[in-house]
């Protein structure tokens, strides 16, 4: 019988009587990569918090064996010392400190209380070289580097602590395609050197590529642990949702009408670096009832483009916007909403939800005046509307007054969607509408998008998931390095088509 690096046996954890985990098993061999799959709210993060002692020993039931001995850690420090390192979805870097300072945060090399910068920089360089990263200067502040580079710095930090097990929680959700490639290759080479890893991701292609074994959990229970060689991404999805997902995209026919909005010659400049153009002279039209997908690599300027249309872009920008053929001026999101343009922003946590406010009140904040006379809200009329919306969008919440932050990502996103649908916009901009949302909720969001299009709303969707763009769009705009690189009707359009256009290798198409 092989010696496991980690064995988690029969782990159960309850929150005030509700079982979040119920008898989960997880085994990791040395040098093995285990993919951990499950919908949002299935209990993946809770399981990892049990492992890393965010929930200390004693607050959960079951047993953890680490290198054959029982692990009874009461803090993250202890699990880190044992060799367990977590790299979170949201990076935990101190932006103004240097790369080396971040890597050695908490384990600084010092000489009689004074920091030894030379030693730290040298060691950081060494660690990064080991990761095959040569274009990071350890003495520069972390904020100079992109999300993908920061992820690599996090891994260097973990290696510095002699990690034996690396837990990667949704590591690629904010990375560009090239950065994802680098990361996956890196994980593979670390694996070859004997480092074990647990890979948590919604992107099943990635899981399939690097995992040796896959464990699927659903609603806090253990569903299956199988070698990846016996599985396909489709069979993983089936296990995750517990039902056959025949069609990921519930396409519905919808009529496309006249032009609603036209953007002419939109250009934007970077907020922090006003010399740099991030959107370069982009023009396009969108029609009534049309779903227009915007594809492109992360950092291509898509978010800047759509937030300019919504009046939310902070940097310099120019260009004109025409609604129904008439030029309109949008100086703030308020102007946009009034004109009939709404936007669901990219970063839900930072700019979508009002975390400590109830789900219901989150939804109605955009249309409060509708329920008010002389500034006084008719709470009952408001509540009736909220309950209707909760039913319509199938938002799972025990009480409409529950703080939205306590809901799962999918339900939060539905509430944010509701907030931006209630003003009954003519154009709805969705920036990464399914990021961090589980498969079931994704399907429902797609259904909503089709329902909107059917009702004549023009939907402009930015997404980094090409399958999603191709799955639901009528037409696809491709943006690369701030320029419009292609405008395709979504008819036999392939991912290769879009990618080559985004990379600027295809001929311009009308």
């Amino acid at each position, binding site marked *: 019988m092989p010696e496991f690096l980690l064995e988690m046996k029969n782990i159960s954890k309850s929150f005030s009587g509700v079982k979040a985990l119920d008898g989960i098993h997880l085994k990791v061999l040395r040098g093995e990569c285990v993919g951990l799959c499950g919908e949002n709210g299935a209990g993946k993060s809770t399981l990892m918090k049990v492992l890393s002692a965010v929930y200390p020993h004693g607050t959960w039931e079951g047993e953890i064996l680490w290198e054959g001995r029982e692990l009874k850690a009461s803090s993250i420090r202890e699990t880190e010392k044992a060799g367990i390192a977590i790299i979170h979805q949201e990076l935990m870097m101190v932006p103004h400190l240097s790369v080396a300072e971040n890597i050695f945060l908490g384990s600084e090399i010092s000489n009689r209380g004074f920091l030894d910068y030379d030693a730290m920089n040298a060691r950081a360089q060494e660690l990064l070289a080991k990761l095959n990263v040569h274009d990071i200067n350890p003495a520069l502040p972390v904020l100079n580097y992109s999300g993908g580079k920061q992820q690599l710095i996090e891994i260097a930090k973990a290696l510095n602590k002699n990690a034996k097990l690396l837990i990667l929680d949704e590591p690629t959700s904010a990375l560009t395609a090239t950065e994802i490639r680098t990361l996956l290759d890196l994980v593979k080479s670390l694996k070859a050197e004997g480092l074990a890893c647990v890979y948590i991701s919604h992107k099943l292609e990635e899981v399939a590529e690097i995992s040796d074994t896959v464990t699927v959990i659903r609603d806090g229970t253990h569903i299956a642990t199988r070698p990846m060689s016996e599985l396909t991404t489709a069979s993983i999805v089936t296990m995750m949702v517990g039902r056959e997902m025949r069609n990921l995209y519930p396409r519905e026919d919808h009529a496309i009408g006249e032009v609603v909005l036209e953007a002419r010659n939109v250009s934007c400049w970077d907020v922090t670096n006003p010399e740099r153009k991030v959107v370069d002279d982009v023009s396009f039209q969108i029609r009534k009832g049309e779903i227009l997908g915007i594809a492109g690599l992360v950092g291509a300027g898509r978010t800047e483009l759509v937030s300019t249309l919504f009046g939310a872009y902070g940097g310099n920008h120019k260009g004109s916007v025409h609604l129904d053929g008439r030029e309109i001026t949008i100086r703030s999101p*308020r102007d946009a909403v009034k004109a009939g343009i709404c936007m669901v922003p990219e970063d839900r946590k930072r700019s979508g939800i009002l975390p*400590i406010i109830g789900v219901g009140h989150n939804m109605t*904040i955009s249309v*409060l005046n509708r329920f008010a006379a002389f500034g006084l809200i*008719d709470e*009952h009329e408001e509540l009736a509307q909220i309950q209707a919306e909760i039913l319509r969008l199938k938002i799972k919440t025990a009480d409409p007054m529950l703080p939205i932050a306590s809901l799962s990502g999918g339900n939060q996103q539905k509430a944010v969607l509701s907030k931006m649908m209630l003003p009954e916009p003519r154009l709805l901009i969705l920036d990464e509408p399914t990021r961090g949302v589980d498969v079931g909720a994704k399907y429902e969001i797609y259904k909503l998008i089709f329902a909107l299009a059917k009702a004549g709303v023009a939907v402009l969707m930015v997404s980094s998931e090409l399958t999603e763009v191709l799955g639901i769009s009528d037409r696809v705009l491709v943006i690369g390095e701030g320029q419009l690189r292609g405008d395709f009707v979504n008819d036999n359009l392939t991912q290769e088509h879009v990618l080559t256009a985004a990379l600027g290798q295809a001929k311009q198409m009308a």
Partner: protein
Amino acid sequence: MTNINLRKFLSENKIVALLIVVALIWLLFGYLTYNTDTGVSGFLTARNFSNLLRQMAITGILAAAMVFVIVAGEIDLSVGSLLGLLGGIAAILDVVYGWPLAGTVSFVLLAGAALGLMNGWMTSYLGIPSFIVTLGGQLAFRGAVLGLTGGITIAPVSPELRYIGQGYLPGWLGNACAILLFLVLLFMAFRTRRKRLQHNLKVPTPVMEAVRLVVIGLFILGFVLVLNSYQGIPVPVLMLLFVLGIFTIIAKGTVFGRYIYAVGSNSEATRLSGVNVNLVKMVVFGLMGLMAALAGITTTARLAAGTPSAGFGGELDAIASCFIGGTSMRGGVGSVIGALVGALIMASLDNGMSMLGVDTFWQQIIKGIILVIAVYLDIVSSGAKRA
């Protein structure tokens, strides 16, 4: 009720927990000031109760508006000096220029709102952190009042102005106010019930509803009877109750109030929902200025003079009251009634300790410790709810 249930109940009904603290403080001072010869406890008399409420009125008026400022994620350090400046202006208009009361009051209120809006404009439209803007205001307003008054006390103010700070409502008027308040509450209870039924929402059983109303009724009755047994409801206390009512309605029932909490919870998300976040913040500061004006007039009236040092440190009392009353430093959470009970706790400590002859320096040390403990308990109780 088990331990956990009790804890849950208290964390969901912070105000009950705070009132229990008030009751404990009163019992303690009642016991300590008990005089065996007369059989009366000096703290628990109608006269002292009336004094206590009058003492807290000024801090309470400031705290009511400060709650909004803190909930919106900002801070106002200038209100103590602003109170002093506006109180000084009121005294000058009244004493030196002999303006009629209505003129003085409306001018000072307008000036307060304008200066508050100016603080708000600099914070939201110019993007200067409110801590800096109002720290500057604290210095500048105090300087202005010293310049205006020439550093001397301006007295004596007219009897009309004095009435605002020192007067009492006649007994019959106090009773009438109480009855009117109860009728309004009764009407609102019936209206809410009818509306909820109309929308098929859950309503409490009629017995529960009746019990609630009777308890509230007895509370109001007791309050008015105690005060009337001395000299009646003090005018500043009536104003404070009025402010409490208005600000609670703003917080719970208006679009503007909802926006304040939304801005404090996540200002970026609120902006992207199409709300004019800058305007909301500016108006919040405007309300703060208005309340500083009201507090300034009351202070001048109560002292019957305008003094250059009036309101010194007032902002800190108001801020402390908010935090004791459960307002969160991070914004988004806080209630007006909580802040007023916080002010009541501070005033009770002041009053009780003075009565016992505790040295001023001890009073300050104890108040400081109580502030820190109160906020710690709040953190513990809300933290326990999450884990």
